């Protein structure tokens, strides 16, 4: 796969809260080489390392990312306003391999694993079942957006305040699918790995030094060898995992 990485400056078009702690930022800039399932690496003033964030949506002019405030970097991002600029490395990671997709695709997302699935559902023309797992009703975001794509959306909440009570993986057995894509916290990915009967692709996270393959900071073991989450990942196919 041809590696196309760019460093360029993006301008914030909007930065709005979707929930208490989850924000959506639309950025204007050179989006020419951003693919579904890839990520960007964002330089923030006052922080040494860049912050990797998945591509949630992308068109000719704009890039949408959705991020959760988990520490100081994302907190600072949440306070930025339209017009401010950000330095991004774009075109990072392998992205989803759509040539492997099935006819009845299942997308399983948990928390901030959900954003990259949006562009994926779009690429699949909404022709998929999307299971979105949250802790509680107030944390739900992007339900309507997925529905607007025409996808069959199933919401789960752990406390049962909305949708099916339980984990995203609790509903899998009742769904008819022949391929899956999953992104979310590692325990969820593990459960998806264990409970899915078909092949599929899973998206991983790791602390990164560079995000473009230079430092070996993000390596994981797979049955096909050592892989860097930032180059040979973040998307790995189920069969190569060593769980």
């Amino acid at each position, binding site marked *: 796969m041809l590696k196309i*990485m760019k460093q360029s400056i993006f301008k914030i078009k909007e930065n709005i809260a979707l929930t208490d702690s989850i924000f959506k930022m639309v950025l204007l800039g050179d989006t020419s080489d951003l693919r579904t399932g890839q990520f960007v690496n964002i330089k923030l003033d006052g922080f040494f390392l860049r912050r990797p964030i998945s591509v949630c949506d992308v068109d000719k002019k704009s890039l949408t990312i959705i991020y959760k405030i988990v520490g100081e970097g994302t907190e600072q991002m949440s306070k930025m306003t339209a017009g401010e600029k950000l330095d991004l490395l774009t075109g990072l990671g392998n992205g989803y391999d759509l040539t492997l997709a099935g006819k009845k695709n299942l997308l399983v997302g948990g928390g901030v694993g959900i954003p990259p699935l949006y562009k994926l559902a779009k690429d699949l023309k909404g022709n998929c079942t999307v299971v979105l797992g949250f802790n509680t009703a107030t944390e739900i975001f992007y339900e309507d957006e997925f529905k607007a794509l025409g996808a069959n959306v199933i919401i789960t909440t752990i406390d049962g305040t909305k949708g099916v009570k339980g984990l995203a993986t609790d509903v899998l057995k009742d769904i008819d699918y022949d391929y899956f894509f999953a992104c979310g916290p590692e325990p969820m990915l593990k459960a998806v790995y264990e409970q899915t009967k078909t092949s599929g692709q899973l998206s991983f996270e790791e*602390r990164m*030094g560079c995000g473009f393959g230079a430092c070996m*900071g993000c390596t994981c073991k797979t049955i096909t060898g050592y892989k860097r989450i930032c180059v040979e990942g973040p998307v790995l196919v189920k069969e190569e995992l060593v769980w």
Partner: protein
Amino acid sequence: MVNAKADAGVYKNTKTRVKTDAVKLGKKTNSKLNTKVILCGVQLDNPIIPASGTFGYGYEFAEFYDINCLGSLSFKGTTREARFGNPTPRIAECESGMINAIGLQNPGIDAVINAELPKLREVFSKPIMANISGFSVEEYAYIAERLDEEEQVEWLEVNISCPNVRGGGMVFGTDSKAAVKVTKAIKAVTTKPVIVKLSPNVTDITEIAKAVEGAGADGVSLINTLIGMRIDLNTKQPIIANTMGGFSGPAVFPIALRMVYQVYEAVKIPIVGIGGVSRAEDVIEMMLAGATAVQIGTANLINPFASKEIVENLLNIMEKYKIKDLKEIIGGAH
């Protein structure tokens, strides 16, 4: 392959600073300025060398820019066998720096010679610095011997200072006697200049420098990373899976500079200055302290175009500070 656009300048700081005046001078750069230096008898077009572990085996960066603008490059520390390295997380963020605990992940000497170096040769015509590591004196010597046959490898950079592996690496770099043994064993099997890479985690770096000089080293490079640590306030446990790791980046520059300065007064062999160098100004400081060549490490990770931008800016900075010939400023602060 890449429409490299280096909008954001070189990061000296965690904050994107205003560009320096020098960038403006760029256009009228004086072609009479000389950036050539000679390192252990081998001439470099300029003293800029990406540091081991921050530039892969080089060819990856050739997808971002033409790496032939560099003086040389030092590739990822190579051991006899392929190594996975340490468990993740291997990276932690710090003020003006980072911690890594890669643990010498590399494909092993066979793969490096058969797969990595051929790929590098396709895109890089400059002399190469081979960075080698080992867990025993024999392993060091074995790798040195193998690389001795590689024509494009001009220097062996012997890493006796990796803080991220047990029972090897840094134990050789914090003990003069062990450092001497490794150096002698390598000198015995190669005719290429041997540059020993020193650890800053010592009471007196000049003692180790003098010891390896006495053992026949043709040069020293310094510094490798300082041992550092961070703790996650949420989990209340160390961030790095391995607890500690190697601390690098602009934060360590004053320490590196001091050590280069001290070692310059202690030995006669040339010094490769490393540690926190992130812009052309830092290169000049390192050379004034005594470095003949200068490596760029962590800066490459934060800004993939850092080494290239430093090379480009070097002439501007030379002009700004009225330096005609880089060679002539080596050790100039003494």
